[in-house]
């Protein structure tokens, strides 16, 4: 079932009042259903439950022998049914995202959908049982050829599929196995309480202090307390990690996956060679990116080695001017217009038609995401907008997803979903465009330095840190398979080693508690090996953006770019990227992506020298880094602020 990767940012927790001049929009979900008690909603639930039964009665056991024309009909029926289920599921999760009180209501709906999707499980399994020859002779049938990319994707799991009784068993067990361990993880973190100067605070609150407090002592204290409590729960986190590694090892073995990463690579439609080319290039670039940046930052903070809690601490200077909602809209649409009028037109719809929920309020989830919903409706975007330049970039990022999803929706429900490797294309791209636009508007050098540093830190957290996470996971899973259960101290050891390797000597991993950092990272728990996709996406888009900037023919670029986005799930990344001449299997390609980061660091250091020169000449030391800090900048300690569309119900993989 859908499991969202919700990045809870710090703004909401800080209880900062919104002081936007105009009203911030809330979304209008009536395009999906009239209300959460509407008869239409429950009628639709009844309908899909009934239709799932009928579908199973009609087709179960008959797929392998079916003529091509009928198979096309069956897939069309499956698509329409899945889309109707997807609509209900989308509505439930969107409603819940802005109102915590709807948890139980939504859980009830998910339960019913789960029951219905269990009935459809046979379909993909049987499609996989059609022999290669049979399929080739049938694929020419009217209607079937159009589904070829989807069939191909389903069948990529063919060699790893178990019998129907085993698959059913695994699906039934999921909620009491992997699913329940993930819930335990979430619950454990949520129920943790920390002591800050005698106050009892939650995880969000303490992380907020740790990442954004202007007071170094406070940050370090929060770090110590946070890690102390994590450590107390170390046995639980270790049991969760080991149990999930064990379940994965056993099911992987049954499915014939040779390495812990294999199943993820297959789902991402990527080969191990490409991933290793990417990860290898990032690792080779550690010294030129992270090591260099943190060395500079340590110097700015006047220390030899940065305390881990200072790694994301903001540089001096204020956050830049507050940007009202209407102005943010203008900036973003103007940036879009420059690249593609077609995309700008779609983006405008989001603002005009109530597809965005931007108002922070009690009971609403923190962070931001875009939900594609279903092709017969449109995507929805949720952000918490407070008006910082950072918020504008987040909004631009989500709009990129939204526009991408609108373009891909034309492929229909089954083929719309973009492979993970390309899912960040439009979002990161538009974030880049808007970042540049914002930077151009800012003429205060210190604010500019702060913005660039924040951008670099985003990239560090997305590219370098996620690659280090990936290495960490490889080692933990690998060692589990070789030697069995890893004690908590051993996992911590691997954590420290991989962190030190990626961040360099300028970040002090010897601070007590730093070894517990692995314990609270949700991706290790709910999406093993997912993390590399962030680094992959970011590097790839860096190269793409570089290509755009250098392209002599901008119109030609736009055309290719739109094609890429419209392809949705119909093309694997190498095919979709071919028109740009990208070879993702080659380390040289990835080096190009990484060089974009290096150029940002160059730009930062050059700007910094300029500032220092000016300060020296005017004797202005007021803005020394140690006592000026901007409380508004979100810390993004663990995950980049990227989101992925939640998987549709009924997925088998």
């Amino acid at each position, binding site marked *: 079932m859908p499991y969202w990767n919700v990045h809870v940012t710090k703004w909401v927790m800080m209880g900062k009042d919104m002081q936007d001049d105009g009203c911030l929009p809330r979304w209008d979900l009536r395009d999906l259903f009239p209300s959460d008690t509407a008869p239409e909603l429950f009628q639709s639930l009844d309908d899909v439950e009934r239709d799932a039964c009928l579908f199973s009665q009609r087709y179960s056991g008959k797929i392998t022998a079916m003529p091509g024309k009928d198979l096309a009909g069956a897939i069309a029926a499956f698509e329409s049914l899945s889309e109707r289920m997807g609509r209900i599921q989308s509505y439930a999760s969107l409603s819940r995202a802005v109102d915590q009180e709807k948890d139980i209501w939504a859980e009830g709906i998910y339960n019913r959908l789960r029951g219905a999707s269990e009935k459809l499980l046979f379909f993909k399994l049987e499609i996989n049982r059609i022999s290669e020859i049979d399929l080739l002779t049938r694929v020419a049938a009217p209607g079937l050829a159009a589904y070829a990319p989807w069939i191909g994707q389903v069948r990529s799991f063919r060699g790893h599929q178990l019998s129907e*009784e085993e698959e059913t*068993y695994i699906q039934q067990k999921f909620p*009491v196995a992997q699913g329940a361990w993930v819930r335990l993880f979430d619950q454990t973190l949520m129920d943790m309480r920390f002591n800050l100067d005698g106050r009892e605070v939650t995880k969000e609150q303490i992380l907020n202090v740790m990442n954004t407090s202007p007071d170094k002592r406070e940050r370090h204290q929060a770090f110590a307390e946070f890690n102390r409590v994590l450590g107390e729960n170390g046995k*639980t986190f270790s049991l969760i990690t080991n149990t999930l590694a*064990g379940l994965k090892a*056993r*099911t992987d073995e*049954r499915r014939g996956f040779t390495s812990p990463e294999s199943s993820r690579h297959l789902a991402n439609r990527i080969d191990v060679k490409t991933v290793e080319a990417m990860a290898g290039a990032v690792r080779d670039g550690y010294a030129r990116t992270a090591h260099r940046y943190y060395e500079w930052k340590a110097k700015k903070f006047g220390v030899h080695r940065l305390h881990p809690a200072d790694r994301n601490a903001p540089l001096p200077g204020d956050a830049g001017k507050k940007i009202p909602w209407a102005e943010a809209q203008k900036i973003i649409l103007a940036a879009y217009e420059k690249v593609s009028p077609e995309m700008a037109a779609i983006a405008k719809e989001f603002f005009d038609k109530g597809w965005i929920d931007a108002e922070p309020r009690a009971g609403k989830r923190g962070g931001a995401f875009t939900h594609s919903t279903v092709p017969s409706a449109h995507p929805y975007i949720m952000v918490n907008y407070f008006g910082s330049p950072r918020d504008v970039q987040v909004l631009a990022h989500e709009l990129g997803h939204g526009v991408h999803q609108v373009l891909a929706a034309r492929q229909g429900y089954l083929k719309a979903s973009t492979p993970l490797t390309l899912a960040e294309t439009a979002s990161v791209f538009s974030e880049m465009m808007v970042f540049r636009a914002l930077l151009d508007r800012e003429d205060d050098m210190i604010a500019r330095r702060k913005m660039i540093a924040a951008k670099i830190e985003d990239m560090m957290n997305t590219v370098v840190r996620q690659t280090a996470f990936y290495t960490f996971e490889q080692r933990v899973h690998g060692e589990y398979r070789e030697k*069995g259960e890893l*004690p908590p101290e051993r996992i911590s050891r691997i954590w420290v080693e991989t962190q030190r390797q990626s961040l360099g000597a300028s970040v002090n991993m010897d601070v007590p508690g730093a070894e517990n950092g692995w314990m609270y990272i949700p991706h290790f728990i709910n999406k093993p090996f997912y993390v590399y996709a962030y680094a992959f996406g970011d590097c790839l888009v860096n190269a793409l953006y570089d290509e755009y900037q250098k392209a002599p023919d901008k119109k030609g670029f736009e055309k290719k770019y739109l094609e890429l986005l419209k392809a949705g799930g119909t093309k694997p990344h190498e095919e979709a990227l071919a028109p740009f001449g990208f070879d993702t299997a080659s380390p040289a390609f990835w080096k190009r992506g990484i060089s974009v980061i290096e150029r940002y660091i160059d730009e930062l250091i050059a700007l910094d020298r300029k500032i220092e020169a000016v300060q020296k000449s005017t004797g202005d030391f007021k803005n020394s880094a140690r006592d000026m800090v901007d409380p508004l900048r979100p810390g993004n300690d663990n995950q980049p602020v990227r989101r992925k569309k939640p998987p549709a119900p009924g997925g088998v993989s």
Partner: protein
Amino acid sequence: MKRGDFKRAAGRRKSEDLPAGNDNLPAAPPHWDLAGLYPGLDSAELMADKEKLDHLARAFKGNYQDSVAYISGPELGIAIQEYEEICSLSSRLASYLFLFEAGDMSNFIKTGKIKAELSDICKPLDFFEDELVNIPQKDILVKMAAPELARYAPWIANILDGALTGGSENLSHLRHDFFMANTEAWQRLYREMLDAQRIDFQGRRLTLDEADVLMNAGRGISAQDKNNLRQAIAEKLKTQGKKSALIYNALMQDNRIEGRLHGYTRPDQAVNAENGIAPEVIDTMRSTLREYYAEQSHRFYEWASAQAGAPAASSGKNEPVKKGYSFDAARKLILRAFRKFSPGFSRTAARFFHEKRIDALPRPGKESGAFSQPVCPGELSFIMMNYTGELQDVVVLGHELGHGIHQKLSEDACGFFKSGVSTPVAETASIFMEMLVFEEILQQEKDPAIRKRLLVEKVENMLSNSLQQLAYYEFECRVHKERESGEVPFERISDLWVEAQKEYYGPAIVMDDYNRYSWMTVPHFFETPFYVYSYAFAQVLVSSLYQAYQEAVEKGPEARMEFVDSYTELLQTGMTRSLHEMFWPFGLDLEEPEFWHSGMSLTDKYMKELFAMEAPAPAGRNTSAPAGKKEKPSPPSKSP
């Protein structure tokens, strides 16, 4: 090897400290000596057996895979015999690991890898039982004419009964995987959660077990402190409520999924099948025993409250009469009680002491509770308990020795495979021996105050073994029923728990938060759902049996000898007779409500004797066994 052999037996909790009050013990209770099994975890002997097992398992697979249905009756008999030998070896290894862990819980991390290896080594054997159960019924009946095979008939019947029908071999492997990797992990999490709790009390940091022991201790703690401690435990439990509910909900649903695959229609059916008891018999028990709540448990607690002086909460004020037993004194007393019944029993029991099969010394890191763990043919069982010199400890030691003797008798008579018995039968020997030990103590005791206390303890024990376990079973039935339509929230589970306890205790006991959250401390609910009714079943069964013995004693030495012979034979049957057949010679018919009534009448007898006593009010309640003393779930303390 049989699936689940690595599964731990239920009902034990670990303690990290001595319960208070062992000051008058002259000699320390003994450690066991595991070196006779293996010199150590890394010993060459253990490695050699592991390799031997690996070799045997693979050879066995090579010889028999895909042919089990086609070989002749005599050949099949020989195959089963080979299989039995391999399983004995694997049992020896597994038992050693289990005992190694029980003596020091921190060994758990050391044994993980080798347990996983053993599990892998045994995997090649999985085919055998799968193929065996898939032999057409007609064929197996024809083959059964061979004497080599016929002697395994009860074992085959047992395998057929527990078999998953219609599932493929792949599915059963998958289920095994999920059991090891998921179900057991939840159970471990549950254990670790309980172990991790600390209660700050008067400058000490107590584990839950320690707090429980202290709360139930007669001396050294005021009633007010007991109450504070009780509240502190309740509060601590409450903080773990959501986590416990998550674990419990996962395990209940897990039980349901596995049950459905077996084609079970009731959630308790796995236990019923294992016990060889028809569901109708359980239903008869449930409806018959319920009638005794008012007559027995309500009345007893009302009396006890009155004895202690209202309000009930103040009962702890009365210091129980303390009588300490050194371990040596306990040994003599038990052997004497056994000898009076049968010299053979006494001789076997003596071997456990001489051969260092008992680990009775409480120490940090050792599991709490008590058990008797069989190893393999030719080896006496190992007994674990925590001996602190309380009267109750003497009784517990008698109980475990009863298990040990039973295990020896049935293994000698039936061999490894057929020696396994269901809980009600297993408890028959242990509770019966416990009764003998109790009567011996009672007869010796002249002090009326102590006699009164002994009777209070006995009645309370019998009630908590029968009616309270029934109330626990009621609770499980209700909560599992609700789980069918979705997750049961933490507070709702607690509501159902309070409800079931009220039915048992009646109006005399007021429910507080401790009663409300104590379901979290009963491991059976998490590890062996519905198992608790087996205790009630066994208690009533033994009560009936014991009355039959009393009658035989009254009739004269000949009748007594006849009873002892029949009883010894009963302990030798293993799984070769059905439950019904086993108790037929004693005139007990389990299918009749009358049987249950007669069992409950023994409690009546003791209660009458107690209520008639004029001795000064002794400790009254709160003298019950400290939590986790026995394999049965300990009753949460009664006083609010």
